């Protein structure tokens, strides 16, 4: 296992470089095909041409390769890599250090993602187990139908409905009652409040985790159903073990492999991709930063932020892979 870990950690490097190059190429393409981002910062009427030229030079965008569609601009890539090796992650179009930008937004996104993951895992697995144990009965059908609803509604529909019905309408009623504690009332806010960094993220976290909750519930259910038919379960039952022990100790562990895989993937997706939820609830997170910088074609920000996200992804997936071996000792790594 130790050698496996060491090899995997070494492999981080080509992956990160590969990702950075792919991102770099894509942002170069988007500038080549989509227009000069510096010019676009100023709207209809730009400052004098000299100012624009100076800005272009500052951001390294005066390179001739940007005029040729399809040119991978290796020179710009090389310069950026050297910068990164010196821990200089660059500045965005407004002159702010990227490390500052990310430093402001990471904590918020981490909290939001954590809430979403805890919610989707706990509720998802519980629902999946309940449905799997009582296949084709009422509970199972209820879970299948409600998870379908969660899948069918895109986040931007679902999120707004929750925001208005739960955070606002229900929230107004709750705030008018006296017997709820303040912290409980603070959860029912339609937008993010910096005074309540955790509580005001609860409802957005639930919205964010809703789709994954459905997926996890279904994965658990299916996995459990399959494993419940296995021979070792039949043996355990034949031996007279309590249902709880059969499920909790034996079956669940084996059923969780696809769930764990999914959560590993989800961590990365949620961290960088929560932009719809962030927009609806006005959360200043990393998703919004990625959205802004992609639309502005601020390649420095895009590459820096997404590279950081990639590192998180890789770590999460490595943990998942290692976890496989914990969950199922038959899986071995040389």
């Amino acid at each position, binding site marked *: 296992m130790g050698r496996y870990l060491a090899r995997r950690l070494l492999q981080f490097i080509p992956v990160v470089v590969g990702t950075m190059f792919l991102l770099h190429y894509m942002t170069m393409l988007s500038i080549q095909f989509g227009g000069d981002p510096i010019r676009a910062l100023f709207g209809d009427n730009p*400052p004098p041409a000299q*100012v624009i030229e*100076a800005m272009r030079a500052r951001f390294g965008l005066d390179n001739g390769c940007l005029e040729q569609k399809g040119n991978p601009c290796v020179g710009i890539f090389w310069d950026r890599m050297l910068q990164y090796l010196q821990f200089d992650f660059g500045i965005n179009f407004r002159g702010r250090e990227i490390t500052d930008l990310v430093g402001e937004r990471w904590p918020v996104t981490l909290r939001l993602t954590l809430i979403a993951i805890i919610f989707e895992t706990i509720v998802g697995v519980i629902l999946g187990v309940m449905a799997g144990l009582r296949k084709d009965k009422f509970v199972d059908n209820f879970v299948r139908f409600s998870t379908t609803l969660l899948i069918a509604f895109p986040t931007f529909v679902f999120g707004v409905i929750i925001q208005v019905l739960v955070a606002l309408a229900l929230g107004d009623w709750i705030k008018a009652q006296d017997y709820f504690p303040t912290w409980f009332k603070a959860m029912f806010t339609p937008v993010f409040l*910096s005074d309540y960094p955790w509580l005001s993220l609860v409802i957005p976290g639930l919205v964010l985790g809703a789709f994954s909750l459905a997926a996890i519930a279904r994965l658990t259910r299916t996995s459990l159903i399959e494993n419940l038919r296995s021979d070792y379960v039949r043996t355990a039952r034949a031996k007279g073990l309590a249902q709880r022990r059969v499920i909790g100790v034996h079956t669940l562990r084996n059923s969780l492999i696809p769930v764990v895989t999914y959560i590993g993937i989800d961590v990365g997706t949620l961290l960088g991709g929560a932009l719809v939820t962030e927009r609806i609830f*006005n959360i*200043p997170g990393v998703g919004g930063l990625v959205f802004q910088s992609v639309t502005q074609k601020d390649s420095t920000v895009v590459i820096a932020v997404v590279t950081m996200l990639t590192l998180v992804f890789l770590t999460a997936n490595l943990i998942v892979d290692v976890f496989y071996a914990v969950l199922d000792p038959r899986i071995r790594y040389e």
Partner: protein
Amino acid sequence: MRMTTPMRVAAAAASFALLVTACGGGGDEGDKDAGGGTGSADPDNPSGGTFSINLTEPSFLAPAQNCYESECNKVLSAINDPLVGIDAETGELQFEGTLAESVESNEDKTVWTLKLRDGLTFHNDEPVNADALMGAWNYSANPKNEMSTAGFMTHIEGAGEGETMTGLKKVDDLTVELTLKAPFQAFGQMMSYLPAWAPIAPACLEDIEACNEAPIGTGPYMMDGKWNHDQGITVTRWEGYQGDRGGQADSIEFTMFADSVAAFRGWQGGTLDVLDTLEPTIYAEATGAAGESQLETETSSLTYMGFPTKTAPFDSKEYRQSFSMAFDRQAVIDAVLNGQAKPSTDIPTPNIPGARDDACKYCEFNPEEAKKLFAEAGGKEGDTVELIFNAGSGHEGWVEAIGNELKNNLGINFTMKGMEWAQYLELLDAGGAKGPFRLGWSKDYPSPENFLRPIVGTGGDVNRSEYSNKELDDLVTEGDAAATPEEAQEIYAQASDLALEDLPLLPLWSGIKTIIWGENVENIVWDPVEEQVSLGQVIVK
């Protein structure tokens, strides 16, 4: 000021652009639809308290010279006094609540002299003097500093050629003399755009980055703490303020929202007191919820579509006219914009002195006449037209509505091309549009010239239709030299008539803005010169 709508840049202007700001103190009479105030805004007896208003994350706060959008201007106009003011009705310079005491020019408008009031200081007690002014203006003009408003400086001799401008001369501690490259009659008015001309505190020049996080100004409010990026900015009363624009509230919180629907939800939840941007989709809900606490006012924002006048079939005047008559503007406004716009009747918007309410005869909906003109111009059923616009700014709805109306009334087919901002600009810059393209404009100063020259003047900054009419240009120049504003407006009107007949643009509508507020505040008054809520007058209950 032009209205453009990429995500957050709400306004941009050319080197000739002027944005009018005037001290908010005496702005009551300019507002036609004054609403929401029963409390008395007694300047000597401020109400105190704190209120919050929405803001979108600004690009820069310092130096002020880098602010070329309405977001940063909202904050900067609270923490700074303007250098020079403008009277909303007449468009003439005035000096109430300004940093300058007087601005004069010589006969041929090439040398201008500005005199500051005595005894003014910045929030950090450094003096507001000629050095502070010249330091700021030289900084702006130096292309190495990449200031967004550098264009304002280009009139001055020596701008752009180095660290200092040869055309700036310090006469004494409070007086500066500016020599222009060429005579410019409206130079004084141009100086009313607060951010471009604001003085910079020496401490700020030494550490611009720190200053950006906590700008140092000259106005009734000062920064409280730092700029909390993407979350909020708080300003609080400056005890050392000597000027006339003192505010009612003790502090103001600018709460940031990236999305205006989220802003409305924040207002509903009690996080915001004043909301000045209402997305059309939640308009009905918002105005219903606000009840009496709302006011509606006209703005100077004009929405129109340019025609590519050198490309067939839009090179035919009758073809363009037929388009303009083929749809009912009011119906589109009612259905898609919730009535938050007024159909155009002239090129300058209705609140500009000299604008007329019946001048655009091709703006009236007349499908039979339209069909006739269309046929005359050689148009056939089944012709396809491409409607081009910048995507992601909420224009999809009305563009589609107009397309459907054109289809129903003229029988043509339409496609919609929503482009990303950068691509859109490139297309327009290159003159490559094949169909009508959406544009916007809003005033820099209250004169018809501010609409006519840029939009339909030869070589105008936003004249992307490639329209050129010497007669019109001459009329505008004649109007510039007129003796009185009324005379000027009459001459400008003749120029506008020429453009309205040739119709190189498709005038659509001018803006209406609705502002709502919550239970904690009152006396919300619209400042028509600055085109925003008069923050100093908001009373906290």
